[in-house]
């Protein structure tokens, strides 16, 4: 056996591989040469063994390359046959539904307050006159009562049961059910006999907050509102408090946020004043504490409240609030 034989055998093998014979290393010239190794002198065998091995590796590499190319071509052909235009897929189940904007807004607000260490309290929508008015320092014949446009129901004594016009009775129930400290918000549905227009619905949603603890001050109220507003609307929004009057708080305030549209310069959204009134707040009136058996000398507290629906319409640029109650899927599915 000469070195040239090995070379010839390798070239022949490579040629057969190119011709499609991928089994040439199993039945072919290099196999034949290998079987003749034993004919060589002992001292030549390692050298030729190595030469043959090298030749086989060269051929094997070519076989592997061709096999890979073939497989890759087949895969490409197969995948091409499976081609799918994802934009031509027909819509079908599962489809996504949509939460109401009020729920989405309420959840966001709840999350901010939970992050601030508050719990979320709920209560009945149909209330007693006592929980809704009396305990909140609004006795019978108080002029503030007429402002609530309450819807009374035919249960019990006349004007003793009503659909709550605010979520404040939940504060009363909460204070009755647990001793201070209390850090809670109360979101929920309310109803007022107020003829709906573009900015009012008779059915709407409020969220109120109540804090009762040792040493709670008006400064804490202002700071807490500021903290919440920054967390919810962003650090650039300013807040201000302005004296106001509510029977259940004293001192009382309206709280306003700087207009996000014009940054406080004055525009149509804020009626040119640079501020948007958001809600009411104040220090819990001692008569409210007395009604639920909390000592106003020991404990102080603050409460605040505002409309959820209004925040939703401002956030989404909705011009007519009545659309929130239409349950019109052409609207609901936008969000």
């Amino acid at each position, binding site marked *: 056996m000469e070195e040239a034989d090995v070379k010839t055998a390798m070239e022949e093998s490579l040629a057969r591989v190119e011709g499609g014979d991928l089994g040439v290393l199993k039945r072919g010239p290099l196999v034949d040469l290998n079987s003749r190794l034993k004919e060589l002198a002992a001292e030549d065998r390692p050298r030729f063994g190595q030469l043959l091995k090298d030749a086989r590796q060269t051929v094997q590499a070519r076989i592997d390359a061709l096999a890979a190319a073939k497989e890759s071509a087949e895969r490409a052909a197969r995948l091409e046959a499976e081609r799918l235009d994802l934009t031509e897929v027909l819509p079908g189940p599962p489809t996504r539904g949509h939460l109401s904007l009020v729920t989405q807004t309420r959840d966001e607000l709840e999350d901010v307050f939970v992050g601030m260490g508050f719990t979320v309290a709920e209560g009945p929508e149909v209330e007693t006159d006592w929980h809704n008015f009396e305990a909140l320092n609004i006795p019978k014949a108080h002029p503030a009562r007429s402002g609530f446009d309450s819807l009374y129901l035919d249960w019990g004594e006349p004007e003793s049961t009503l659909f709550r016009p605010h979520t404040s009775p939940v504060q009363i129930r909460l204070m009755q059910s647990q001793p201070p400290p209390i850090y809670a918000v109360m979101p929920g549905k309310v109803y007022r006999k107020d003829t709906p227009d573009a900015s009012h619905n008779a059915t709407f949603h409020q969220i109120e907050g109540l804090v009762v603890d040792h040493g709670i001050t008006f*400064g804490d109220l202002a700071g807490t509102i500021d903290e919440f507003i920054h967390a919810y609307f962003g650090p650039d929004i300013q807040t201000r408090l*302005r004296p106001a009057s509510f029977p259940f708080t*004293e001192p009382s305030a309206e709280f306003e946020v700087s207009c996000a549209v014009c940054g406080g310069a004055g525009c149509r959204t804020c009626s040119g004043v640079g501020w948007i009134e958001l809600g009411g707040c104040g220090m819990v009136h001692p008569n409210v504490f007395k009604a639920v058996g909390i000592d106003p000398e020991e404990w102080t507290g603050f409460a605040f409240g505002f409309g959820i629906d209004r925040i939703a319409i401002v956030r989404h640029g909705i011009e007519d609030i009545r659309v929130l109650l239409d349950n019109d899927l052409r609207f609901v599915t936008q969000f």
Partner: protein
Amino acid sequence: MRVPLSWLRDFAPFEGDPIALGETFDDLGMVVEGIERVGEGLDGVVVARVLEVHRIEGADKIRRVLVDDGTGDAVQVVCGAWNFEAGAVVPFARVGAVLPGDFAIGRRKMKGVESNGMICSARELSMGEDGAGIMVLADDVADPGTPFADAMGIQADVVFDLAIETNRPDANSVAGVARDAAARLKLPFTLPSGSLPGGAPTASASARVESPDLCPRFTATVVTDVVVGESPEWVRRRLTLAGMRPINNVVDASNYVMLELGQPTHPYDLDQLGGQGLLVRAARPGEKLVTLDGVERTLGTVGEDCLICDALDVPVGIAGIMGGESSEISAATTRVLLEAAYFAPMAIARTSKRLGLRSEASARFERGCDPDGIDRSVARFCQVAGVGQVDGGAIDVRSLPADRPAIRVRTKRVNKVLGTALSTEQIASYLEPIGFEVARANGAADAAAVDAAAVLDVVPPSFRPDVSIEENVIEEVARHHGYMNIERTIPRRPFVGSLTPYQKARRRLREVLVGAGLSEALGVPLLAPGEHAKAGLAEKALSAPDPLAREESVLRTSVLPGLLRAVAFNQSHRVADVALFEIGHVFGVPAEDSQPLPDEREVLGAVVADAVAAKRVFDVVSQTFHSSVSLASVADAPGLHPTRSAAVSIDGVGVVGHVGEVDPGVLAGWGIEGRVGWIGLDLGAFLPVTPVYRAARPVSRFPSSDIDLAFVVPDTVPAAAVQDELYAAAGDLLQSVALFDVYRDPERLGEGRRSLAYRLRFQSQDRTLTDEDVAAVRARLIDAIESGLGASLRG
């Protein structure tokens, strides 16, 4: 309330930018809703007389006009208005004038003709809405060249439109606004003194009060030799700026005093009053009176209404709300009886609300006027009216409590509530300028001693009926310290905030439903009468005797009617495949009369394509919260399809709701096409109120084996029963049971039967199952179903 700046300046020297003054009002809780500037932009506008009017060649809209503007030379202008001719007296803006709205008048040329100024319309001068023609003035208004503002008596002014809180009756007057703002700005505030006409009470009239509880103070003053006519120009101007129409000098004076001092008064024509006097008493039940607005009012039917009658007991007005027609001031009036009284606020509020009748007077009385301010107001009326002679002294009937009690104000408490570090003397300094009498502690000679005592005894002024407890005073301190000057702090919160397990589960339920393709509806808790019945439900429900509208008068017992309305609405707007849910409260009529409130529950209602879709959505929902729930067909669930609905039960809880389809008869009633699947769940019972942590089951490393079995089962046997039986017979190795085929064929399977095919998967934790294992289980399953349920294995 509209408050002119010039009027405010009668009481305190307000200077500077009106915007800044407005911010002070805002900061004190008198909300500025608008600032209007009047009478500005009239510099350079003069009275002029039109000398000649000429056509311009080639122009049919404009004319060349020569005017005498008092300079001596005829001035040429081009004018587009046609409502005047030579001789007319007009307002003329000279070149250089800047009209309201920053409209600068320059020299310009039109059609080659030079125009040296502008003849103005009322609108261009902010004098009215008319912009069609120029403003033609009276011939004798003034000589040409006279400044237009002087000729018309116009003064530049700023009018603040303020919203006053209900607890601040004192601020419902020009003087009250001035007092508050002057205190904040540390300006001197002066309120002219004035007293009731003194001397022996007049003999020309009488006044009697029968109901002192309704009217704690009543005064009557007689003015004779009155000539009713037009008020002086300054009175008319101020009333107009404040938004009131001038009527005559007597009525105007009454209105002026009300706006300025907050005290409503009522002038009567004394000669039209029977018996020449007044009587104040509670109305008798059913008594009638025609008020000034021409409406007949019935009084005294519910609670007490306070009436003003003449001395012969004939009603002439509803006290503090509105007078009657009979004794109105007329051109013929010569003797006036002026009523100035303090009526009980609650009584006025009650009567006004019941009658649905509100007036400027009632709005002030019901919030509480100043019973001690009457004297000054009567004096001011006589001054403003400026006519007639006061006849004798005023009649003054009073039953007011002698003194207002002092309120103890503790410095420590003020700072505890506000979070401030105010000294006692600082607190006093905020209260005194707004009329509070502040008594320092006994023997406290100087500021240091006052601060050391740390208490004040404070008597609120008679015009602050809202202040009766320490907290009210604290609010006044905060207002005058400035809400925005109180340092903002954040309380250290002792809790970790979180939602309750129920609230978390409810959010998850919403997300699962949205993932299943349903959108959320928002329900109104009130329905129209008959809507429950229309949804197949019992009509028994609580309702509102006095609703906003009949459509929202019945308290819902279910969310079904509202969702059906939403389906019908969406179908009618060509929205296909309506899938909606609502989570809301429903209200059952209580079983016991002693129950204070209705049975209120939070429920889920969902409407989808049909019962099959409902069941599939329900499976997703129920598997989210429960490892097993059971369904049982029901034929009598209100509003639901009698053969395509089932009750949902949870072990240990009972029935928690229904799943199925809405009765086709109900759907027809709502005009809904096709089927509507339904899920209704009582969430209080369905959702977990404590977190549920299911115990883990290890996943086996050994292969599983499946057994497929099809049984022919009578329709009377629910598939759920077959499945239960399979579970019971399968033994411990069972991993899952799945129904994978339902097949009906009367010819091959017989009438009233169907084939139910199940795949059961078996697996052991510790070995590979043998053929023998599987065969044994299979035989056991077949035997259980065939013997227990009257079914047969399908060959």
